[in-house]
């Protein structure tokens, strides 16, 4: 079973991702802060990480950079963020994210996007 780590501080949004991912056979791990996320990523080595960018301690960009240092390039990290200004996608990719999904997400296509990175 593929492991997916959700790093998201908004419980409603985390619940939405959980609900969508539960349509498939995934093992779901969750963290609500960047630091917890890094620890869980290191312990569990997930198959994919969903990364919120605005987080209470470390932001998602810095969290991504640190996870990349620990796990290297093998785990796809998808930024899922409400930062939808020009340049935000580029900033996410420059920090080491593999892909970028803009919030609000489209539930109809969300799983397909996840699949394309697994």
């Amino acid at each position, binding site marked *: 079973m593929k492991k997916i780590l959700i790093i998201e501080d*908004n419980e*409603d*949004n985390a619940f*939405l991702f959980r*609900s*969508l991912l539960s*349509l498939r056979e995934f093992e779901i791990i969750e963290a609500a802060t960047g630091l917890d996320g890094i620890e869980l990523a290191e312990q569990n080595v997930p198959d994919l990480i969903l990364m919120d960018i*605005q987080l209470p301690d470390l932001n998602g960009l810095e969290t991504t950079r640190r996870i990349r240092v620990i796990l290297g390039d093998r785990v796809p990290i998808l930024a899922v963020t*409400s*930062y*939808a*200004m*020009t*340049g935000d996608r580029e900033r996410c990719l420059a920090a080491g994210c593999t892909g970028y999904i803009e*919030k*609000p*997400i*489209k*539930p*109809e296509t969300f799983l397909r996007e996840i699949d394309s990175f697994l």
Partner: protein
Amino acid sequence: MNAKSVGGFPMKILVVDDNKDNVELMKQILEDEYNLHVAYSGEECIEKAIAQQPDLILLDVNMPDMDGYETMQKLKQGPTTWYIPVIFASAFYTDSAMIVKGLEQGAFDYLTKPIDEDILQAKVRAVKRIKRAEDEIRHQKDELQLINNKLQSADKLKSIFLASMSHELRTPLNSIIGFTGLMLMQVAGSINEQQKEQLNRVKRNADHLLELINDVLDISKIEADKVELAISSFDICALVGEIIQNIAPEFEEKGLELALNRPEIAIMVTSDPRRVRQILMNFMSNALKFTKQGSITVELNFNEAHQVVITVEDTGIGIPTENMDKLFEPFQQISSDLTNHYKGTGLGLYLCKKLSSLIQADIQVISEINVGSKFTLNLPNKIKMDVI
């Protein structure tokens, strides 16, 4: 020099003359009403003018070493003395050429010796009046500068506020749109037709709210000059085809015909495809919104000015002539009863106009009530990079 020196305190006058008797005479005439300072040479005059910033200098022309003309020249070149009015006084140089020379060098006025007390008093009062007006202007200028600074920082604050609001509003919308979509997917159990219709309305309104947020964000970025264009070379025919393919189901749903007339070749243009798409999507969704029956025709062609001409023509309700010039202003969706019927942000065409000028394109509209509207985008085939 501060504004109070004239308003609240007696005017400060520097009397410059190498002759002590002349200085005494001036003192007698002016001392009661004005704050008098004295210099006995051109050098001393300049030193005191810098140090004391008098409101007026009464300058003798005929002095040993540095004469009055040279002194005045130095005063007019000094960064802290050039604006001090000078009245020069002389017994010897009273022919018009010498007077003109003094005035040309920047003197405010002149006096001839022997000094006439009344004329001296009147000329000093004239300086006083002008100074009061100048001080008033300077004061207003300072105030305007202050207001301008405040406006600039308020404007910056507005942009930051809008950007952060956009982010904050998207987060709850993620839950609303996400869970609505999830329920419509019926994965947690089936829903009946009525519930489906109700959820669809939630979804449509949430999508509309998202559109509004995006438009507001785009406009705030344009107004703050923060739009970055991503220029590339692309096939405009393919782009238009793609837009039509995406939006076709909505036309079908409404029973509207949708036709595309274009040359069957690739037409490469150099521009920002995202912005072009945004403008054309706006044309298309307006056509969809305001057409009850009939057809929408999209045409792609060239004109003599090396522009790609894209038109979107509908058979919709049309635009009243008197509202044509308001069309591209924000929140001006024509007539309130229509607004209730035809949901829109009221920002679409305003945004289109702003975007089109960014990509050096222009938009034209022709319309007839109950016949239809035709929106045209004239897009240069190559954006001029040095103008961006």
